[in-house]
């Protein structure tokens, strides 16, 4: 059954991205929106739009009944969840299918087995994908946690099984800290995800975050190589690139093959990302989690392999098989994405609210700007601070960094404060130029370079 009308259960830049993909495939679009998003670009671009509740996401974008009602009322035959909100909610995926519609993503069962960190770890072990030394499942009591932590060695990380976006993660240096932090992490995860289960793993020092993009149609599985997202602030990715500068060809092939093995182990359907920590000193990589959805940073992969991941997701959901094999996927050049957030890097990354002023979008060769802005748009306080993503492609990494600087300088949003100035400094930094970064690198850099940001 092919899709004729797609409901977009999301907002912001990813809603715009999904509408564009649907338009190119000749699919009609329905945009749901909260009262705070009535003037959003996605609403303006969609063929139809339906208000689903007040500004608060819990009462609108996370309201399963309201989203399903909008889909039924408009005769949509498929729902795309984007990222965040309901994208990894297995009950929502089930409910969409139970209502006779297509969920653009994996089945609820696949989300359950891969979305839960403890269960995903078991799947990874069964597929011979290396995992970080740690607990085999959810930790029931503190004595067990402390015993295990002592055996793998401190520091250890405690994670909520239902976590995501870096929430519910704590690092304990010793047994006393573990006791205090386990309680806090459990409470935070329970508040954000209604599930307080925790697991524990060894901290890999100065690791890099490397993730593999995969696609599956339930029978055939391919990878679209890796992305490196080591430049993070508070565990939020800030700068992503592909390919990684850290991998040898041999390790790259092993890493990507392990991601495909994992996808095959669950007969994966749709686009997904397998995330790893990479220890440069030993060349070891460890599976950390799988995201069963499209990711914010998918365009860097699109840039280097020339595949429209959103279109592929929608075609697979409509029942088509992958139209290419692994051998057809070839990397060309280097891509970098930076996140333009409504935060003021000169003032502790405080949320910056305001109206988009006299706007100038960057352009020219190798420049893509995915965003949902227009002149006069009022930035909403109710959702996350991502305004757009600047994606740069060039033949070489050096070329991409030079092009990034040029494109960031072209971007103008009036008086609105954004993270854009940070990227001019990063693009000029010797460590960034050399690719000598790791997951804690940016935090340290910010401490040492605060003066440059406030100038």
């Amino acid at each position: 059954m092919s899709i004729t009308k797609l409901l977009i259960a999301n907002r912001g830049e990813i809603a715009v991205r999904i509408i564009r993909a649907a338009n190119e495939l000749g699919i009609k679009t329905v945009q749901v929106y909260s009262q705070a998003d009535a003037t959003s670009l996605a609403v303006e671009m969609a063929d139809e739009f339906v208000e689903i509740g007040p500004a608060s996401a819990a009462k609108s974008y996370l309201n399963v009944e309201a989203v399903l009602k909008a889909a039924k009322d408009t005769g949509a035959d498929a729902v795309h969840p984007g990222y965040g909100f309901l994208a990894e909610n297995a009950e929502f995926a089930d409910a969409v299918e139970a209502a006779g519609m297509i969920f653009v993503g994996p089945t609820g069962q696949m989300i359950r087995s891969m979305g839960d960190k403890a269960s995903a770890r078991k799947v990874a072990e069964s597929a011979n994908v290396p995992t970080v030394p740690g607990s085999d499942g959810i930790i029931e009591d503190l004595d067990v946690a402390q015993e295990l932590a002592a055996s793998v060695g401190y520091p250890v990380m405690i994670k909520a099984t239902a976590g995501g976006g870096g929430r519910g993660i704590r690092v304990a240096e010793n047994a006393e800290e573990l006791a205090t932090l386990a309680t806090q992490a459990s409470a935070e995860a329970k508040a954000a995800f209604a599930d307080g289960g925790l697991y524990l793993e060894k901290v890999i020092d100065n690791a890099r975050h490397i993730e593999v993009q995969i696609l599956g149609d339930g029978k055939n599985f391919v990878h679209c190589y890796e992305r490196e997202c080591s430049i993070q602030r508070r565990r939020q990715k800030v700068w992503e690139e592909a390919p990684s500068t850290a991998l040898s060809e041999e390790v790259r092939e092993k890493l990507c093959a392990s991601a495909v093995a994992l996808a095959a182990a669950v007969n994966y359907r749709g686009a997904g990302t397998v995330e790893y920590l990479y220890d440069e000193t030993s060349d070891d990589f460890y599976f950390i989690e799988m995201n069963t959805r499209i990711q914010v940073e998918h365009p860097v992969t699109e840039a280097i392999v020339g595949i429209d991941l959103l279109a592929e997701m929608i075609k697979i959901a409509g029942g088509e098989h992958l139209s290419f094999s692994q051998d057809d996927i070839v990397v060309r050049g280097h891509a970098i994405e930076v996140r333009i957030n409504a935060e003021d890097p000169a003032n502790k990354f405080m949320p910056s609210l305001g109206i988009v002023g006299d706007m100038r979008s960057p352009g020219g060769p190798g420049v893509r700007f995915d965003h949902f802005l227009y002149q006069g748009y009022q930035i909403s306080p109710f959702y996350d601070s991502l305004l757009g993503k600047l994606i740069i492609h060039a033949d070489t990494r050096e070329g991409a960094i030079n092009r990034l600087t040029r494109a960031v300088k072209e971007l103008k949003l009036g008086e609105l404060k954004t993270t854009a100035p940070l990227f001019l400094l990063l693009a000029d930094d010797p460590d960034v130029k050399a690719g000598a970064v790791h997951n804690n690198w940016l935090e340290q850099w910010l401490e040492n370079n605060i003066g440059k940001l406030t100038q």
Partner: protein
Amino acid sequence: MAKIEIRSQLPGVFYRKPSPDEPTFKEVGDTVKAGDAIGLVEVMKTFQQINADAAGIIVSFEVEDSDVISPGQVLAVIEG
């Protein structure tokens, strides 16, 4: 006794509790010192604490827990 209005500089969602499972920061009739927290404003998924600007007794909350607020809106009134 002067009435002092506590306002939020930011728009967002106002909460009277530090987290959903905890008691409120303050109730009507409570005594506050300057700098005491009376609520939180959630803006772009980050939380900014709202403090009393002066000492006194809380006489009213002008917004409910989880209400959407605008910049400059009065959140509570204290008498000091």
